[in-house]
């Protein structure tokens, strides 16, 4: 499935992601990691811990609604794979994020920005295995 190259929108989106990471650190003193926020939500240590996570998550979920409000349509969510592959992929992502501690936003942005060796190693590793997986699925299995 072809997608349109959107350098400006994507860069702008990245800037907003970075901005939210800075603001969360400046206010709550926390790393902006979707997995960490989700994991803590399911297993909170106390109510105040639960409430900040739930509130940030509520904000995240209303992001597409805000986009809808200004542009008249939801952001594109095109899923070029079968439901079975989606479930398998989701399950594997869940295994991976639990064993380590979060990836794209936590390690890929916040950890890399802190020049954390763990995050740099994690990001390089998953970029390589993601690339290999996409190549295998699309060009060797032909899915």
């Amino acid at each position, binding site marked *: 499935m072809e997608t349109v190259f959107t350098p400006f929108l994507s860069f702008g989106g*990245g800037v907003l992601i970075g901005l939210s990471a800075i603001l969360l650190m400046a206010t709550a003193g926390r790393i902006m990691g979707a997995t960490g926020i989700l994991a803590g939500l399911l297993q909170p240590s106390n109510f105040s811990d639960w409430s900040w996570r739930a509130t940030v998550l509520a904000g995240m979920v209303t992001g597409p609604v805000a986009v809808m409000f200004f542009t008249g349509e939801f952001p594109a969510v095109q899923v070029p794979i079968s439901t079975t592959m989606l479930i398998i992929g989701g399950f594997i992502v869940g295994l991976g994020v*639990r064993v380590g501690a979060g990836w*794209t936003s936590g390690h890929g942005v916040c950890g890399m920005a802190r020049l954390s060796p763990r995050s740099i190693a994690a990001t390089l590793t998953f970029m390589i295995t993601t690339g290999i997986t996409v190549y295998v699925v699309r060009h060797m299995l032909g899915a």
Partner: protein
Amino acid sequence: MRLISLYLIGLVFGVGISISGMANPAKVLNFFDIAGTWDPSLAFVMGGALIVTFIGYRFVLKRPAPMMSESFQLPTRRDLDLPLIAGSAVFGIGWGISGFCPGGALPALGTGRIEVVTFVIALLAGIFVAKVLQSMLAKRAPVQI
């Protein structure tokens, strides 16, 4: 006041993810499909987010404490270990199959799309199973790597 700020921070993240294309599996997968329908957009997401965060963190972390909390909660470990690398590798396989990562999928829940809900349920199942396996292993013998 505190909760309103946190909500708005989540909203900024959600809007950023939405317009960047990270919530769109077709775009994510195409970023990695250099040999096929390549779309380099995600490099710009990563670039924008990293430049801003890199500079912003320098200023924020110079302060003695965050505004609404007693201290900064930062990971202190710097060593590399097997769970980190293995977990990253496994995550990449799942991301390469599905095109969704948690940071992309959670905001995408707001679109109400059944595919996103399906992914998030599978994601939670994976997290739960890994947790059960980890606690079973931990009870059996302390693993030293």
